[in-house]
């Protein structure tokens, strides 16, 4: 009976109703990784730093969230849902960069927390290009640096793609 119980418990998450409130659980999981078909354009939440000259630099996740890649992406995804959380993250990074006096990060004037849409095949075949489009979760000025217009939450930028 115990043997059968263990087998059934491990198999239980196959049924959607038995996957827990959040759609997956621990230590009994339905291992959803690799199972979902990927869309033509993949959405990724990330943070970029802009210099006064308009250069874009990707900000490493260690500056704004904790954990390894998968954990970082989930946290960013969650923080993007609410304006207040997105603003907090943006300002935290901006505050940190305002203290930089050397290197590229000392030239950064704005921080953008965005969701970019990427064509993965094109990105890895033709060499790293920017996103097809980018939606602003939050953007903020780095304190005590040159002031430019700061985009509003929800603004969308298109790159080589018809709006």
């Amino acid at each position: 009976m115990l043997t059968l119980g263990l087998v059934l418990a491990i198999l239980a998450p196959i049924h959607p109703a038995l996957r827990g409130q959040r759609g997956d659980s621990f230590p009994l999981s339905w291992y959803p990784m690799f199972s979902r078909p990927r869309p033509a354009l993949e959405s990724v939440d990330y943070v970029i730093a802009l210099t006064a000259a308009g250069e874009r630099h990707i900000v490493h996740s260690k500056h704004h969230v904790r954990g390894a890649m998968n954990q970082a992406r989930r946290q960013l995804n969650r923080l993007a849902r609410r304006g207040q959380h997105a603003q907090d993250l943006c300002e935290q990074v901006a505050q940190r960069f305002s203290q930089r006096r050397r290197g590229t990060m000392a030239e950064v004037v704005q921080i953008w927390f965005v969701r970019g849409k990427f064509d993965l095949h094109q990105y890895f075949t033709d060499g790293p290009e920017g996103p097809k489009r980018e939606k602003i979760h939050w953007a903020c000025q780095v304190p005590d640096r040159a002031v430019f217009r700061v985009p509003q939450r929800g603004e969308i930028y298109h790159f080589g793609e018809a709006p």
Partner: protein
Amino acid sequence: MSRLRARWAATMLAPAPPVRLAVVRILTGLFALWYICKYDRWLSEFEGLSARVFAPIGLTSHLHAPLPDATVMALGIATTVAGVLFTLGLLWRLSGPAFALLLLYTMTYRNSWSMVFHHENMLVLHVLILGFLPAAGVLAIDPWLRRRWPRLGWMGATPALDPQPRWQIGWGLKLLQIGATVPYVVAGVAKVNGKAGWAWALGDNLRDQVLMNGIYYELLMGGAKAITAVSIHWTWAWVLLAAGTLVLEFGAPLALLGGRWAVGVVVGLIGLHWGILWIMGIHFDYQLFGVAFACFVPWERLARLSRRSPRPHPAGTGSHLRES
């Protein structure tokens, strides 16, 4: 039907010596301790991250906010101490269940920060099973303690077990083997239950997943693995990798039959995890190092083999010459 039942009983209840389970206890305990100690702050890593990204699951679903820092620290210390006792086989009747439950709770808490670490599931499941099995009757401190101080039984020290094979040990090992193989079937079902269905075996889905993983590394961690850009040009390789993955996942329980089946499946699964590490950079350490599959190894035979084939001893050779 009765023949099938007899076969099932013979497979599930085949006797095994206690030393086999004891070795699995030591290896699993050592791995769990290494795993929780390799992170400087394994449990308080997310301290100060606020409740915004706290998403309690499973056993921690009762929580509405992160635990206080002091509680997290106390849980971390208690789990580590219980893990040491578990590995040593000390006060087993207490330390076995205590480590099993503490590791389950603390790991679930660790997985409640917006992301489930699927590489931790099997370790927790195995410790949970082991903690309630008679795994400290040999190669443990408890039997020695009980011989010296028989009254220590009330503190949870277990007596020595007869080294002869017994069905209870064999059954315990089978439970561990189920924990090491059946989750792969769940992963396989998830793949073919998705929109792609059985066409998942054609490899497109797997390739796109690898590319997606690559873009996340690019945008969050400073760069993707070089192989990501190379792998996009593989064509038939993706079909082989995807079809091979499904065959391994659905065929994993065949390892329960033992013998060559077990060897084939275990080697295949370890290879699968090394492949995932190579292509995607994802560490399933418990499987990569083979600890997850230690329950398939007849450890007592390895010990016998090492005793049977000693190197020729110089003194022995000398005495032989003298006799002749």
